[in-house]
């Protein structure tokens, strides 16, 4: 086992304290996975569990995804990096998580490729704040958009045709908490069950639309994908649309309404006849 970092030491001590004093029913964080270089979400419920908590760049999941299903467990402390905290902001707005039943332990995201590394909301902060990342220029998306439409279609079709419809992307996503997902509904069966390219494209396009105004670009879906489909290109396009059209960056403002549940009578409608 590598030596714990300063933040990990602080985190373990604080988790132990919270659990010993029974201030929370559990501390949601990460522990090392069974394979080297992996981490898995972990709910520490006993003071003795605290020393298993880790925090490093291998912590790929978005912990907010586990909060709706922990609602019946009482007060929960959650380790929140930038993306986790942005998702918590969204889940509170969507009434999936009660803010006053959470204790948010803010930490800087060890992953320096994240656009927002520091938590947006927290009750206490451990360690050093990360330097602010430069504003996102979405250069990757603009580069892809410069391709002719037929090439864009072929590139996305090629990638999405590889999808085996395991729905790992959905399972790790904090936005996907519907009791019955539209792809699982059987009456009517909205989307074909087969990994046919046309069903795959339909699934991924509708998934993208469901992310609009909600995706915080944590990248958990792309990291969970067993065959490495670059899902972030689709998610980031949706984020760019929402930013350009509605001036909204999901999860950064606890008081702003979700952009697709709100409207402005002056919204641009150049595409409507």
């Amino acid at each position, binding site marked *: 086992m590598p030596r714990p970092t300063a933040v990990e030491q602080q985190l373990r001590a604080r988790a132990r304290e919270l659990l010993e004093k029974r201030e929370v029913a559990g501390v949601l964080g990460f522990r090392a996975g069974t394979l080297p270089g992996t981490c898995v979400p972990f709910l520490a419920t006993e003071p003795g569990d605290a020393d298993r908590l880790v925090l490093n760049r291998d912590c790929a999941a978005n912990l907010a995804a586990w909060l709706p299903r922990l609602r019946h467990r009482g007060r929960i402390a959650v380790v929140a990096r930038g993306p986790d905290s942005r998702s918590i902001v969204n889940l509170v707005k969507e009434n999936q998580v009660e803010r006053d039943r959470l204790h948010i332990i803010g930490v800087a995201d060890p992953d320096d490729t994240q656009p927002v590394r520091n938590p947006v909301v927290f009750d206490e902060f451990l360690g050093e704040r990360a330097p602010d990342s430069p504003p996102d220029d979405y250069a990757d998306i603009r580069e892809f958009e410069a391709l002719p439409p037929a090439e864009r279609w072929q590139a996305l079709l090629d990638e999405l045709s590889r999808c085996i419809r395991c729905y790992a992307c959905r399972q790790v996503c904090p936005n996907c908490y519907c009791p019955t997902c539209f792809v699982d509904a059987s009456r009517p069966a909205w989307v074909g069950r087969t990994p046919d390219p046309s069903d795959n494209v339909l699934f991924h396009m*509708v998934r993208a*639309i469901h992310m609009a105004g909600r995706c915080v670009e944590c990248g958990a879906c792309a990291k969970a994908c067993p065959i490495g489909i670059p899902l972030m290109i689709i998610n980031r396009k949706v984020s760019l649309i929402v930013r350009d059209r509605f001036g909204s960056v999901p999860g950064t403002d606890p008081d702003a309404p979700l952009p697709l549940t709100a409207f402005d009578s002056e919204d641009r409608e150049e595409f*409507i006849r």
Partner: protein
Amino acid sequence: MMADTNPVPSTVSGDFEPRIVAFLCNWCSYAGADLAGISRIQYPPSIRVVRVPCSGRVDPFYILKALQQGADGVLVSGCHPGDCHYLTGNYVARRRFAVLHDLLGFFGIEPGRVSFSWVSAAEGERFAEVVREVTERVRALGPSNRLADARLTEKAERAG
């Protein structure tokens, strides 16, 4: 949805006559289509109308599903901004359609495959004009093939 759609490709009879699914809101555009009808205004018989209570009822999924199931184009039409029977349904719909419109473009789906319009109950002529325009645009694009389910086309070809 769309279970009874004829899967025979629209090109079978020679000239391409587009099949367009039109989602019309009950209060404005459907009434506008009705007015076009009772006024005997001529427009191409290319649209299959699905009456919906409000343009806000149209999930972007319906539009994509129609294209997958063999529609060559989709038209969504509702009340003009400010005229929604439910006050704000079309404003909320407008944001959803904006996201869908931009996403379709990103995926390389031809602009014009999916059209949006506002048509009031008093605009019979305008409704006919919208249908003419949308039909011509889709006719020029040819049969939809990018989102369409190839299995349906193959099945139709096997059936002759």
